């Protein structure tokens, strides 16, 4: 299971970070980026997505499927790693991490 962490910047804005493979990024990188409020990446992935689709429609069905699968795996595996790298490289600091289930003792 992925690990949930929370990062905060000096203005008090918080973003969540999940480790591991991201299905959402694989299927729809734009939505994944919007969910993390990474506006620049969302804009870039929108342009990339349009360009990629324009390219895809000109290819054979088998090639389309192979390219789509490759893209799915690439984004799924890389998205959260890149996100963490961007956060730690920027002005974000880790503020909260997930406890083990046995440590959490709400009512």
């Amino acid at each position: 299971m992925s690990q949930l962490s929370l990062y905060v910047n000096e203005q008090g804005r918080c973003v969540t970070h999940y480790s591991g493979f991201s299905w959402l990024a694989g299927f729809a990188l734009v939505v994944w980026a919007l969910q993390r409020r990474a506006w620049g990446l969302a804009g870039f992935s929108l342009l990339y997505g349009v360009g990629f689709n324009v390219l895809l429609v000109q290819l054979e069905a088998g090639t389309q499927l192979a390219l789509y699968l490759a893209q799915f795996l690439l984004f799924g595996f890389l998205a959260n790693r890149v996100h963490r790298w961007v956060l730690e490289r920027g002005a974000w600091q880790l503020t909260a991490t997930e406890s083990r289930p046995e440590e959490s003792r709400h009512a």
Partner: protein
Amino acid sequence: MNAVDCLDQAGPAASTLMLEDGPFALLVVLIIMAIVMATALSPLLRRAFLHRVTRLMGLNQVRPRPDGWWNPPYRTLSPSEPAATDNTASAQLHASALAWEQRVTRATGIGWLIFVLAAIPVAGWSNPSMAWGDRLGFATFAGLLALWPALVNLPPRWTRKATYLGLAVLALVALTAVIGEESGASARSLPEEETFEWWVIPVALGLGAAYLALFRRSLRGLVLPLAVVLSVFMLVFVFPLALMESRVGSCLATFTPGSAEAASAPGAHFWTGTFSMLGATLAMLGLWFGFWVVGRLALLVERGWLDELSMAAAIGLVITALMMVFGNVPDELADQSALAAWLPLPWVLGSIAAFVVALGKRPKTAPGPQLLVLRVFSRDRRQQALLDRLQSRWRYVGTVNQAGGPDMVDLNVDPYECAMFLSSRLHDIFLPAAVSKDQLRGRLNTLPDHGGRYRINEVFNFNTAWRSTVEQLVQISDAILLDLRGLTPEREGTCYEIGLLAKNGKLARVVAVGDDTTDWPHVDRLLAEAGASADQLKRLDLDTDPKQERLFLQLLEKGIT
């Protein structure tokens, strides 16, 4: 030949266009699609919400938050004053709560009635050729659809009776329509393919069920805001595309991948890129605008201008009015009737104005006694039903405070929480660590809204915050309900809370409820460990004394002494 030459060619046949039946018919279809999608997604959404809350509750703070987090620009509440310490007798407070509840019920009834009566002229304005009998039918159907939004605003005891009544009337209307259609078809001696199509019934029932699900107690907190997001998304995304289709439809053939036209048409890549870009941009814009609308609606609730019940009722009326009016405009008037597009606005506003006038001035605007609900986290329906009835009644007296948890997703998800969840900012409503009394008061809304109802304040906590938050909530609350149904020694959170109440000398403000699932001897042991005697805790066994009214009165007495 160049890429734009296709604009000069004849467009596709009108029968293949999205706007085939006119813009109003398309709007109705889009709203219905949004409702169906929201309902279909509701189990997933609920599960995702539960999952997210549970995971956030398990977070441990490892670094303190900067000051900016504690004073976000969207939060305008100032630390609230403690409850007014007047010496009003509990019986008097109870009577005034009952009176105000009845007044809300009456005002809701009047608002609904105005909505139904106004439907008659609205039917005539939106379709002048409509016969009087049909106008009455229009008003009846509008009244039935508006019944569920109205019920949201009523006390929970109304829900079951009115739902059965509404379903019975709906079934009657459907039956009459079917019989009428059948006899009409026979009288006109229509050929077999033009007679009544029975598949319409399950589709209509399915749509009706989707509509009802919007207002279901356990779903509406999450589904209604989602329906708003999807409706706005559909309007912003699909409607411009439909308009464009009717204007540049001749070029759309190039957009169909694999078609012969796509391969050979000049400028195929130009149009493919253009439509992809436009579609993606409109989709993003639609999503953003949908979230923006829900965010603004949520702020109305967060700032105390409206409570979440009135908001849900108002949204329901708007959806009903839009569907009824847009579905009633005849095809031949659809292109020229700009008036019809605005008809839902005065219709809904008139009904809301009638509600506000009938409600009158709210009795008081000072904080009332605050009730803290401490409980064993459980999703047992019986437990939730009691809490629901109790908190619905207490809201006419003062605020209800409780620690947020996954068990309350069926009862207390308000538009603000839902908007924060949908926009992936749910973590911002969680307290990360111990807070001072003033910091906590600053996050609680203790004043009644314009409808006279106080707020249910759910305080969500990280794992590193909940103990201190419960301690502060115990200090600032006037009455405490300790729901011990399902308590076992393994329920360490609730066991901690029992010890906390005893150590802080707050047992005099507590009414504990339990049943045959409560381990009372363990409760006594916990009290003894904290230095209190077992008889200091006022208990109510719901197996032997299930009167909710008695519980309410006992809590009221605790709250004002």
